[in-house]
């Protein structure tokens, strides 16, 4: 998917993550801050990059502020931000397809 406009999903509440995605030209530029960076930083990064790859996003600036979200929450927030940036988040989501 091509990132068309900036979009945000998620909150800064505990157990959540806020994902901001903007159009970019130089591959995936990921900026990650997390309250559990030392323990889970690598895993969080991997989960985010994996979700973006599944959605076929190859160029974007992505900022994630993680507040101790589970993997399932991270995926949900990344996907929501991407679909919002394409204006496609409201209906006909490919549940079980690229969203899984």
């Amino acid at each position: 998917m091509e990132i068309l406009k900036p979009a945000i999903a998620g909150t800064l509440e505990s157990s959540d993550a806020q994902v901001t995605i903007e159009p970019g030209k130089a591959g995936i530029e990921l900026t990650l801050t997390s309250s559990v960076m030392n323990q889970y930083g690598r895993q969080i990064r991997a989960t985010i990059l994996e979700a973006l790859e599944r959605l076929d996003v190859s160029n974007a600036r992505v900022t994630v502020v993680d507040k101790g979200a589970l993997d399932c929450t991270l995926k949900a927030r990344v996907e929501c931000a991407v679909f919002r940036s394409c204006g496609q988040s409201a209906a006909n989501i490919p549940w079980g397809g690229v969203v899984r």
Partner: protein
Amino acid sequence: MIPRPRPERFRLRRTMMFMNAQKPGLIKDAYIYGCDSIMLDLEDAVAENQKDAARFSLYHALRSIDYGDTEVVVRINGLDTPHWQEDVRVCVAGGADGIRIAKCESAQDVHTVEHAVEQAEREFGVEPGRTLLMAALESPKGILNAYEICSASERMFGVAISGGDFRKCMQTTPQRDGVDMLFARGQMLLAARAAGIQCFDTVFTDLDDQEGFEAEVRQNKAMGFDGKSLINPKQIRFVHQVFAPTQKEVIQAEKILLAYREQSAAGVGVFTVDGKMIDVAFIPGAERTLRLARACGMYEGDLV
């Protein structure tokens, strides 16, 4: 991925706790509280501009969190909104046990949702008929049409009244003795029993008024409800206590079932237990008591 077993249409549902599907902190460990069902909410708890985000959150929660024996029902948005069809798709794709139809007013509303569920089951390769339905009656029209709603589909497992909206329509407020919704609750119970499905009371929203809450739960039990909707885990324990059978009822039920087995094997239809006449009509009630007792940890036998 956590595959959930095929939902049971009739199971124990004493407590159904509402949770905002958009809040990861809430839904990630909802099963630890021990309520019989959780109700993940896509409707009123979710702000209008977060409906999309709540669905992504719901989908991954359903697919990756092991809720164990806790039933997972999702409250979808009303049929008068642009959201409900996508809500149905995500519920079916995620494998929710059931869908609660908000603001249900007619059998047609049930059929409309059922049709969308059938389509989604085909689309996502889900076993046809797996996804159960329940209806929330929130208006005078819903209460008046209770029976046609309750009997509208083989997927329907229950019906619940939603006090907030209903009282608004009726120009009343919660009363200590329950007189504000006495007729509506009674009518809904009659309809549910006539259709052979379960019946649940509304939430009690004043968390500081424990006395009022307890009085309402006792009245629910006395009226014959199967369970109650809740908004806070601290309400669960009391409902389970009130809905548990007494020791005396458990012993009586056990005696009835044992005697029934013996007598019917000997070709006897009507007999007495402790001086009371018993025939086949008492058996479903006794079985229900023992199932409830088992869920409450009061019965470990093998009669049910």
